[in-house]
């Protein structure tokens, strides 16, 4: 039997289609079987925080959240503002929500201190610019993580973050730590750091250190993909604002006003 070139191409094409079709079917079958075996629909976790500004007592000098975070993560204290390292800190309301200001200086709330931290954005600009993948968004729970082993200290992320949530270690942080927590590493000179929503605590089923330390439960942490969680209930019942949402970053720290 003699095949023409046209017939040969037709036959081999049909064979290829057959083989790939079979593989595709098997893969689909496997996927559905796996889903059935796990037995439950797994909600993608989406960590977020709700801060009740009315409950927060920072205007009365309370800094328990900041102290707890600094102690837990070996965050150094610098007198020189140029060297400052901040994970969670206070900012006046007018600086936290500049776009919400009326411009009238008598605004009673403009100087009220508000706790600010990394917003663990849905669309984090810091992640987009990091050249080494030292910061990335965890697909499992939405935390914007830091890998200090990989950070080369280029500070692109600091330029990209519209919230100023990142700090650079200009000097060795160990020289400015009075107490060392051996369970958490310090950072070293030349790397950038920020709040990580305490994944080391979340792994043990504990809330972030700041949330736990707040005497008035002004900070509520939860899985925003779960409509039954307290953070979601608060967001559903009260008026909440996020910082600089017009930038499209999708912050996951909400403020109840």
């Amino acid at each position: 039997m003699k095949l023409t070139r046209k017939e040969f191409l037709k036959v081999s094409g049909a064979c290829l289609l057959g083989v790939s079709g079979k593989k595709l079917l098997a893969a689909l079958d496997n996927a559905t079987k796996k889903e059935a075996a796990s037995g439950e629909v797994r909600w993608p976790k989406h960590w977020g925080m709700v801060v009740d500004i009315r409950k927060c007592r920072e205007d009365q000098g309370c800094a328990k959240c900041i102290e707890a975070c600094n102690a837990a993560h070996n965050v150094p204290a610098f007198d020189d503002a140029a060297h400052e390292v901040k994970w969670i800190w206070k900012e006046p309301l007018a600086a936290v929500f500049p776009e919400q200001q009326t411009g009238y200086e008598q605004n009673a709330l403009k100087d009220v201190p508000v706790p600010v931290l990394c917003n663990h954005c849905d669309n984090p600009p810091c992640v987009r610019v990091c050249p080494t993948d030292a910061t990335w968004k965890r697909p499992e729970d939405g935390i914007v993580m830091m890998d200090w082993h990989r950070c080369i200290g280029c500070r692109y992320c600091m330029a990209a973050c519209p919230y100023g949530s990142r700090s650079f270690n200009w000097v060795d942080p160990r020289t400015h730590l009075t107490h060392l927590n051996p369970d958490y590493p310090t950072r070293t000179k030349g790397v950038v750091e920020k709040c990580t929503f305490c994944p080391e605590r979340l792994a043990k089923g504990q809330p972030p250190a700041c949330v736990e330390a707040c005497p008035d439960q002004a900070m509520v942490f939860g899985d925003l993909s779960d409509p039954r969680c307290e953070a979601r209930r608060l967001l559903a019942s009260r008026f909440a604002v996020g910082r600089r949402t017009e930038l499209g970053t999708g912050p996951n720290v909400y403020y109840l006003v």
Partner: protein
Amino acid sequence: MRKKSKSMPDKVWIISGLLLFLGLTTYPVWHNLSAHTTSKGPDLVLPVSAKECVAPLSYMRTSHTKLLLSWRDEVVRQGRRTYAAADGKVYNMSLSGTCLRCHNKQKFCDRCHSYAGLSTVDCWNCHVDPALAEGSKR
């Protein structure tokens, strides 16, 4: 043509050359003797609280760096924090929390590393030696 002398006229050069050669080739011996170094291995203080490590001794001797690097990647990048050893024991993957719970950094890690001439181990720029933490006060 020069007349050959029976009494080796270049004796001074030959002997001093030989002495120089001997001195140079045996220099490591003199150097070590004067620096009081011995061929004995590092004086390691082994843990007393535990009898076995997270992996067999032979593996730990040659490949502890690999293990630590994989722990690092698992914890930081993958978010997995526990390590199941071959004997079924489960450990928390933590340099300060697990390794240094048994080992003494100065008398184990540092002594062997300095004996082997490994000058740059950057783990400790960030990871905290619990002994150091005890010394720090609030």
